[in-house]
């Protein structure tokens, strides 16, 4: 069991307000990801849930219980940190068992739970080693194991993959997804990487400047962004934004179209332009062009295409894939 309710959480450091009223509900067993640019307050929010920071005002309830004045260790949470934060002087086994030992669990129980968690993460050969003798990926698995052993109501992950190299990041991402399925636990995960957010989350919370911009499933955010910020943040390469005036569209200040919803042709199309740069990625070809009518555009084509810089091409948006935003950046009408 592990649900979480946040009600108008505010947090200020000195005079600077980092969280400006966060309301959020997380249901039992959900995988929720906080995503946003650096400094948006996502880590502070996670620390507030953990009890490592006190909220200036507002309430945090875990499983319906108000935990504003409960110590981190008593909240029924476990946290995985970006820097692993393993105890350097303890072995892997002791690292994983410390929380239970502090809580006064029996030795046999600790051994059993540590062995089980080590089995899930294939850490058995390393139990007697110290963190310094492990690789980065192994250390992060130990940190995850330390969280599992506590059998928390809430798992909190603070950018757990940022210190890993690209290949390891994909593996560990799969591992976390697998863990979520097998443990059926509630997980809250902070990242600035929208790919991690899209691939792992049941629900993404997009934060910007201390406020929630939008909450929704990955596909909801992709297909129906609520505002310019979310539209620009989710999806890679970034959505193209075109001034409504240039398209003769008076109902929208800005019109957005994703790069994958633009088709290119040498013969003819809506917007004529010149290719500035081409990135050949094998599976995709990303073409940057400067069009006469709508300004700079990015197009993402599937497969290999033989475009080169200075080619003259015609871009055509997919009908109905346009997002239209008003002067305040809010969506007027979304695609489909």
């Amino acid at each position, binding site marked *: 069991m592990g649900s979480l309710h946040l009600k108008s959480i505010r947090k200020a450091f000195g005079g600077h307000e980092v969280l400006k009223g966060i309301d959020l509900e997380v249901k039992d067993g959900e995988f929720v990801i906080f995503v946003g640019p650096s400094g948006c307050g996502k880590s502070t929010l996670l*620390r507030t849930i*953990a*009890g*490592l920071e006190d909220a200036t005002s507002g309430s945090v309830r875990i499983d319906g219980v108000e935990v504003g004045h409960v*110590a*981190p*260790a*008593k909240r029924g*949470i*476990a*946290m995985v*940190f*970006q*820097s*692993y*934060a*393993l*105890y*350097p*002087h303890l072995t892997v086994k002791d690292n994983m068992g*410390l*929380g239970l030992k*502090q*809580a006064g669990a029996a030795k046999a129980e600790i051994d059993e739970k540590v062995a089980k968690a080590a089995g899930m993460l294939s850490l058995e050969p390393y139990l007697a080693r110290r963190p310094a003798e492990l690789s980065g990926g192994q250390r992060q698995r130990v940190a995850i194991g*330390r969280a599992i052993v*506590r059998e928390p109501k809430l798992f909190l992950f*603070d950018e757990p993959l940022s210190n890993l190299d690209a290949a390891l990041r994909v593996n560990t991402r799969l591992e976390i997804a697998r863990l979520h399925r097998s443990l059926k636990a509630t997980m809250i995960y902070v990242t600035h990487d929208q790919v991690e957010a899209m691939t792992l989350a049941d629900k993404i919370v997009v934060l910007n400047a201390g406020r929630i911009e939008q909450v929704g499933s990955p596909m909801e955010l992709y297909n129906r962004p609520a505002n310019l910020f979310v539209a620009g943040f989710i999806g890679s390469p970034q959505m193209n934004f075109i001034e409504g005036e240039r398209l003769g569209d008076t109902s929208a200040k800005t019109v957005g179209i994703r790069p994958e919803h633009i088709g290119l042709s040498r013969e003819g199309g809506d917007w004529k332009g010149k290719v500035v740069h081409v990135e050949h990625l094998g599976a995709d070809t990303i073409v940057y062009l400067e069009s006469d009518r709508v300004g700079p555009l990015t197009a993402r084509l599937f497969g290999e295409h033989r475009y080169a810089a200075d080619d003259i091409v015609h871009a055509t948006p997919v009908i109905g894939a346009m997002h239209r935003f008003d002067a305040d950046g809010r969506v007027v009408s979304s695609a489909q």
Partner: protein
Amino acid sequence: MSKARTSLARTGAVHFALIAYTLIALFPVFLTIANSFKSRNAIFREPLAIPTPETFSLIGYQTVLKQGDFIGYFQNSVIVTVVSIALVLLFGAMAAFALSEYRFRGNTLMGLYLALGIMIPIRLGTVAILQGMVASNLVNTLTALILVYTAQGLPLAVFILSEFMRTVSDDLKNAGRIDGLSEYAIFFRLVLPLVRPAMATVAVFTMIPIWNDLWFPLILAPAEPTKTITLGSQIFIGQFVTNWNAVLSALSLAIFPVLVLYVIFSRQLIRGITAGAVK
């Protein structure tokens, strides 16, 4: 790999400089120890000569061990130094932890206040300290010396240790909090082991001035049972006649405890000095 950087001339020059410095630094120590084993005449005739079978004499050591309670002085010095270091490290580290870990009003100001003692010599307050000690009946006790030396060592300890403690990862401390460690357990079990090299540095910097101090033992604890070794050795230095054999022997003996403590701390110290250079 690169021949240019390890050329013979270059290494030679570096080694020459280092050896020269070592010789200069060790010369007074050598002179003290060598002369302490010579007869009085030999000391004055050839001060730089090493003891030969003709000039060898233990008269200095015999005088030292016979006159006065030398073992007692020794003990006093060791007690004062060790207890003071222990207190300085304990209180210094605790203050440093509070300053580096907790946000509270006046944190920076408090840090500056605690570091002020680095700039103001404690000896300026000698008269007030003496009055205080007289009033609290602590004159001629080792406690008086320990209190003064603890106060003297704290500013530098707080300053150095708080800088080091800032480098200990916040995530680690937070992980400890989530695992249910108390703030004391976090301090003693997570943070202290990680700043051990800095503690050794502070211990050495604190130890040497305390061991060598003549001022406060002379003023606060000049009585026979509380004399420290530096003060005890002074009985051999007279206004008109100085017993050089005894003085040199006493000084030679006084070197050893410092040497032992230094060896204990030095492994840590070297790690402390090179910390950051080789991560």
